[in-house]
């Protein structure tokens, strides 16, 4: 089972009310390479991956939910007291008509989240390469969002999330090395 902790993984700060940035950020909430897709991808692959890698998928999958909460916090703060006019001017008129300020699992262009965003091939190498690619794509998405943002406090949190993608990719690469290793061979470290 899972335990919720009443604490963010990172002290998220936002300096200005800016619904336009929220519109871009939602990509990492309900997009193909977003945090929800990441959490569900890894936690779902656990059941068929070799035992040696289950712990890693469990822990990275769990951390992704902490990142999902950080993105939600950013979107919440960027839109909390914005007026309907401001939402409309930010290109969020369509969102506002359907959801008011509620968050929704869709990408920056408004397409709803779908299970086709995640893969589970059952082949450990195919799945781990998928995971490495997912981390690199998420890293790139954070870069493109940072490129469009002029909010230094928001960028601070986004840079933290971007760096986590780098570390996760490193661990998935190590998992491939572990599964590649000839069986019965003595380890070099």
């Amino acid at each position, binding site marked *: 089972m899972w335990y919720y902790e009443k604490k963010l993984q990172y002290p998220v700060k936002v300096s200005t009310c800016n619904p336009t940035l929220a519109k871009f950020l939602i990509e990492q909430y309900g997009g193909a390479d977003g945090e929800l897709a990441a959490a569900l991808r890894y936690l779902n692959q656990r059941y068929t991956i070799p035992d040696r890698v289950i712990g890693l998928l469990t822990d990275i999958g769990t951390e992704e939910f902490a990142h999902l909460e950080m993105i939600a916090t950013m979107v919440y703060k960027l839109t909390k007291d914005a007026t309907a006019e401001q939402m409309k001017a930010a290109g969020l008129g369509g969102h506002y008509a359907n959801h008011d300020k509620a968050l929704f699992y869709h990408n920056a262009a408004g397409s709803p989240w779908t299970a086709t965003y995640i893969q589970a091939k059952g082949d450990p190498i195919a799945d781990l390469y998928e995971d490495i690619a997912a981390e690199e794509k998420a*890293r790139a998405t954070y870069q493109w969002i940072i*490129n469009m943002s002029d909010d230094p406090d928001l960028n601070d949190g986004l*840079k*933290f999330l971007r760096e986590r993608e*780098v*570390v996760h990719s490193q661990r998935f690469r190590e998992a491939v090395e572990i599964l590649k290793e000839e069986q019965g061979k003595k380890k070099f470290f």
Partner: protein
Amino acid sequence: MSSNMKYWHPYISPFDPCPPVRVKRYNTPPNLYMGFQPYGLEQFSPREALHRGTLWPALFSPYESPVEANMKKGMRE
């Protein structure tokens, strides 16, 4: 240590409608080079690790948007 960014010069046509960007870049973070992480790598303090997003300087990949890079340049000038 490996460089975190690589730069390249795209082909420029005289008929390109936007003003040409002569140098483009892409990110090559340290996970591409590290292989299996060795034991006992140097660590950041806990506070610094939190703010950088990793415990190990060898895995830290700095990133700056073009806007931020220009602001820094402007401050120096």
